């Protein structure tokens, strides 16, 4: 099986602060990878680099066949293949749920209103919010907004979905509804990379767990490494997380 995501010795600095100090890992098609680690370990930055929200300064990054370190990388094609969901939802507040979902298919793929609406109906059903199609974001709970954000990304039919701490702003009850949607996506065979603090979720859903520490991959393996960590640092991190 060929990897759909391939990071080799990736380096990234903000000014004099080196955030990624040589990150290497792969994710295969259909896999769910969970990136875990303390805040400041570089995990969110690594994820943002995969959608070229940040540019890398060293190493190589191959995402869905796009070489991100190339200066002439086709960003439009990259973003068609990659969907990303943010911690703060970032729904467009002046558009209804339906309009939020249909905006990109219409603008980027040039779809007709009717075709875009069909896609919107499909993806909103996947996140279980059919009855909210004509609501505005502010009428929805945080969990519902996040599910709409997921649907909005799915509408572009991406090959890879990135999730950047998507439940961190939600209380436990709302977290559950978002995680269930993500679990279903995984079961449907979507390739997913998620930066998360939800250890239980990572243990249950992730095929691959990547523990980042100080800008590097410190330990990596199947979700078993959360039960039997090889390094004392991951062991400490896991037990620390369990306390919360």
């Amino acid at each position, binding site marked *: 099986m060929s990897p759909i995501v391939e990071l080799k010795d990736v380096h990234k600095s903000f000014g004099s602060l080196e955030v990624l100090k040589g990150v290497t890992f792969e994710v295969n098609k259909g896999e769910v990878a969970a990136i875990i680690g303390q805040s400041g370990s570089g995990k969110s930055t690594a994820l943002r680099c995969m*959608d070229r*929200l940040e540019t890398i300064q060293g190493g190589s990054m191959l995402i869905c066949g796009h070489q991100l370190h190339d200066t002439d990388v086709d960003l*439009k094609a990259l*973003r*068609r293949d*990659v*969907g*990303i969901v*943010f911690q*703060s939802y*970032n*729904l*467009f*507040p*002046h*558009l*209804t749920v339906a309009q939020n979902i249909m*905006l*990109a298919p219409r*603008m*980027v793929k040039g779809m007709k209103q009717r075709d875009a609406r069909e896609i919107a109906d499909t993806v909103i059903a996947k996140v279980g919010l059919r009855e909210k199609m004509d609501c*505005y974001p*502010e*009428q929805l709970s945080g969990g519902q907004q996040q599910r709409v*954000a997921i649907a*909005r*990304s799915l509408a*572009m039919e991406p090959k890879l979905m990135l999730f950047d701490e998507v439940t961190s702003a939600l209380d436990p009850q709302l977290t559950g509804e978002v995680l269930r949607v993500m679990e279903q996506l995984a079961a449907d065979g979507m390739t997913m990379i998620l930066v998360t603090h939800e250890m239980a979720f990572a243990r249950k859903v992730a095929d691959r767990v990547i523990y980042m520490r100080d800008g590097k991959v410190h330990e990596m393996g199947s979700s078993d490494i959360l039960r039997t960590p090889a390094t004392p640092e991951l062991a400490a991190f896991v037990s620390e997380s369990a306390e919360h």
Partner: protein
Amino acid sequence: MIYNFDFGAVLAYWPLLLEGVWTTLRLTLFSTVFGILVGAFCAVVRTGGPAWARWIVSLYVEFIRNTPLLVQSYFLIFGIASMGIRLPILLGAVIALTVNIGAYTTEIVRAGIESIHRGQLEAATCLGLSSTQTYLHVIIRPALERVYPALSSQYVLLMLASSIVSSVGVEELFGISNRIQSETYRNFEIFVVLGVIYLLLAVLVRSGFALLGLAIFPRRRTLGTPL
């Protein structure tokens, strides 16, 4: 001494007054449309343009906002005439008013654009929208919706301030009253009548903006809350 008010003498000129009202409304309408276009364009340049263009826009904005409309009108309209260019007087007035209101609009819209959260741009970028599409659908529209109340007030002031272009010979409502004045000598009554008409016009323009707002911002129509 008891002054005998004679509003009849002034009101007898109602067709003339109506003509003035019509001209004032046309002036306001055209300057509003062009002013918003100029303001939105300059606000985009001011927030996202190259450094030299930002500099030009802020020079324009600062200069207009710190000098009186009257002097701007003299400068532009008498200036254009002194170059031997014959412009229809109404066109000259619309240019002067647009140049003026455009600067104020720039500042208001810029504040709106700057209030748009950075995450909105990232979301649009990641969905693959081009920068033009992002500006149109994710920045300008919500920015305008957010500053719409401030814009409405500014354009009511524009309608009132359009009386100033009477001083360069435009026969809008205020200018046309000079004619009535010279024929009736009922100075005070004229100003009272003008005052009442302008008050009504202010209400009219304000309501017009409110209705327009409901028409172009469906979110506001549905929820009734500010963005």
